[in-house]
């Protein structure tokens, strides 16, 4: 599968990195030779220096033989023009464009199916807003993903010191709460991801990933001792485009929202556009302002300024002053490993959101979606089990599935099941599988090869 990526920024790099580890042919186009250098040195990709919107460069890069075009530069216009020329040079190439401007995004129906035949339009800000709202709905979780049309949720929770599950072996846990069905998928401890067995225990400070049905989520979270007190008071620090969009979404629900913004003009604008939110003019790291606004009673502080160092410090400060939870926006991927070290749980990144949705759309065939877990050591896939696949028709305990990979959930029609050893997968069921990155090719073989060739 040959994929052409336009734009050698952070989004382009991480998308290319994931695609090359899956042995896809990747070609990257960018105007900046400096930006391409990193690709040549670290990844097995081919690079072309030039404007991605130029039909000459696109032809040179081999658009005619490509399967997919990912236009992910920072410029919407470049992305759109690239898609336009691709459509005229080579009909049938699947196109994905990253579009940030609201005005373009509103004309999605015109852009997508008719004019340029763009298959997918990714708006990182929209993706981010979705992530934020999801997190607000499940305040105890660090990681949330939907599978099987939202019937099944993958949740990552940090185990607090007073949690009742500490020291309990996993198989005892299952006995204890027999009626509640959930599977512990992975445990992230000391920067390492492990797939646990029945004899493993849970420690304080672990990040535990589990899968359960959406309807039972609250009960399962209680087992892990997660503070499920619902969020009422929200504070947004720094309210640019993303902040505004999140604020508008939050206003639609029954939250109480405050906003701190340093730019007076912007404050006026926000006050005009927003209805119930309290817009405060000031600095997010101003202690007296925070005290005045009763920071202790705020359930969630979202730091969204354009400066990530400021976001870090704001989150640390408000946590220190008594705010219950924080969400921090970061852009530099280099900071990701230190986030849990300095005690900040939830992070949000428009780029990461964009990359995740891009990867999801690249996957063709029977894989419907995929999500990377923390540290990128493992991935959760949702796939359709075809009649001829090796996993169909046998009880799970008899399956010869690679170690390091587990079937987490099965969706059968509209009902979803958390499986046990006796579950039998039927044709056209959707299965949710967790696999360590090393085992992904083997899982794909288990599922895909049989699916595709027989």
């Amino acid at each position, binding site marked *: 599968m*040959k994929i052409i990526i336009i734009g050698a920024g952070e989004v382009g790099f991480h998308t290319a990195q994931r695609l*090359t*580890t899956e*042995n896809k*042919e*990747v*070609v990257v186009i960018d105007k900046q*030779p400096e930006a391409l250098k990193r690709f*040549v*040195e*670290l*990844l*097995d*990709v*081919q690079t072309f220096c030039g404007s991605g919107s130029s039909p000459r460069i696109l032809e040179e890069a081999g658009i005619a033989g490509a399967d997919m075009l990912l236009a992910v530069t920072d410029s919407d216009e470049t992305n759109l023009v690239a898609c336009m020329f691709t459509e005229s040079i080579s009909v049938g190439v699947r196109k994905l464009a990253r579009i940030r401007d609201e005005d373009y995004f509103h004309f999605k129906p015109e852009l997508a199916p008719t004019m340029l035949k763009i298959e997918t339009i990714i708006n990182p800000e929209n993706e981010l807003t979705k992530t934020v709202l999801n997190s607000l709905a499940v305040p105890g979780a660090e990681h949330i993903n939907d599978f099987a049309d939202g019937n099944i949720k993958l949740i990552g929770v940090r185990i607090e010191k007073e949690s009742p599950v500490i020291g309990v072996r996993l198989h005892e846990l299952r006995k204890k709460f027999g009626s509640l069905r959930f599977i512990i998928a992975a445990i992230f401890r000391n920067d390492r991801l492990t797939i646990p067995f029945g004899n493993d225990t849970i420690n304080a400070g672990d990040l535990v990933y589990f899968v359960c049905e959406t309807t039972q989520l609250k009960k399962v979270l209680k087992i892990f001792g997660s503070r499920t007190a619902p969020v009422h008071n929200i504070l947004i620090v720094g309210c640019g485009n993303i902040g505004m969009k999140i604020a508008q979404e939050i206003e639609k629900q029954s939250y109480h929202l405050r906003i701190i913004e340093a730019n007076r003009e912007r404050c006026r604008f926000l006050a005009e556009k927003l209805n119930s939110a309290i817009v405060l003019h000031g600095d997010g790291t101003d202690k007296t302002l925070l005290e005045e606004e009763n920071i202790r009673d705020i359930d969630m502080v979202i730091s969204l300024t354009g400066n990530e160092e400021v976001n870090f410090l704001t989150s640390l400060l408000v946590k220190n002053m008594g705010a219950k939870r924080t969400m921090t926006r970061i852009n530099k991927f280099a900071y990701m490993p230190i986030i849990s070290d300095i005690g900040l749980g939830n992070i949000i990144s428009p780029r990461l959101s964009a990359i995740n949705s891009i990867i999801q759309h690249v996957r063709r065939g029977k894989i419907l979606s995929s999500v990377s877990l923390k540290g990128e050591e493992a991935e959760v896939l949702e796939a359709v089990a075809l009649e001829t696949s090796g996993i169909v028709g046998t009880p799970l305990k008899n399956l010869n599935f690679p170690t390091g990979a587990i079937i987490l959930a099965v969706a059968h029609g509209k009902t979803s099941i958390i499986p046990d050893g006796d579950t039998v997968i039927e044709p056209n069921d959707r299965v949710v599988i967790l696999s360590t990155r090393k085992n992904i090719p083997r899982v794909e073989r288990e599922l895909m090869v049989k699916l595709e060739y027989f």
Partner: protein
Amino acid sequence: MRLYYVIRSVGAIAVCIGLTMLLPLAFSVYYDDGSTQPLVQSMLIVLGIGLPVLLFTRRFDQPYMNHRNAMTIVTIGWIAATLIGALPFFLAGTFGTFTDCVFESISGFSTTGSSVLTDIECVPKGILMWRSLTHWLGGMGIIVLSLAILPFLGLGGMQLYRAEAPGPTPDKLTPRIRDTASALWIIYLVFTLVMIILLMFGGMDLFDSICHTFGTLATGGFSTKNLSIAYYNSAYIDAVITIFMLLAGINFSLHYQLLFGKIKPVFSDPELRFFLLVVAFLILVTAFVLYQTTYPGLSQSFRYAAFQVSSIITTTGYVTADFEIWPFLSQSILLFCMFLGASAGSTGGGMKCMRIMLLLKHIYLELFRIIHPRAVTQLKFGKRLVTEDIIRGVWGFFIMYIGLFLLSSFVLTALGIDLVTSFSAVAACIGNVGPGLGSVGPTNNYAHLPVVAKWMLSICMLLGRLEIYTVIILFVPEFWRK
């Protein structure tokens, strides 16, 4: 430094080379020439060490590779290849000393073709086939071969490829390095098959035509005859070999483009034009000089001049005429060819036309700047912009090349070897050419040189093939600092 990963990669390279011993083995069994046993033994030794290394280091695969690892793997891989190459010679007792075995092996892998064999024709055919095969493997590159065969090297592949490939800016032809490596080997293989058939039409038997094809396409120069190509004394064979030497001296990425029907960009390639122009000019001058002095006929002068100039400029080193007896002008033209070499990205050696062109252009730009001090200039090669760091790299290479040449010549003269022999032997070895002048000329060989000189020249051949940087960087203390 990821030591285990280096060991794993070198083990993989060793296994690849070990498996290729099947070809000479087949010939030695067919001819029943007594070299079967040493070949089987060598293969068992190589696989016996290589396979366990591969198995036991399985968990050391790593997701990416840095420059240091790549250069270490390539250099150590080549040294390992040299030792593997020397094994059959050593076990078969082809040479009296270990030094000679190593010299012949590195001369093979580096596609030099300088031999220490005095009587080639009495050596078993299996061993001769192995000797020519080392050329063929080293020509396109053992790293490129490993990249094409072994998937696990793919992740750091570009670094490895760059450390081995000749020329200042190796091209990646396809998105995945593995596909590039495969494409190069397939083109190489097709040329090989075509040439074997053409040579057999000229009356060579299968064995000789395979050996000479390997020697030609790798721009190596090992023959199976004491007289080299002069043995056949056939204008047809001379012509076939001349054409294929020149083809092998052209950048293989141009062959690749030609394969996809892109004729125009290939013939507008500045390096190709320069290369062909220089070859044509030098052939005409040499032919004219030879017609005036040495040979009676014009066609004869042209035939020898064309073959010999092509042979030396592509750094092959086959001979059809004893250029020892040629006039000095012709000899100095050949010496010039040894330094110039073939195109970047070809199987040939030398400094490469592209580098010389870049240097000439850069010098011209410097002069231009003196005339127009405020002019803004950009160095361009064809339509591509050449950045400052590439030029810096090329100058560095040029200076190190000349430095290595001078240093090695001093060592050889210090051993009591005459000036012409010393200079030409070193030039022929760094440039991976083969025959020099004086007592290492076309009718002689390197057997009579002292042991120290042979080791010195072996080092020159390795440095010449890996284009100096890759090897010499291992001797910079900063490289090993943690």
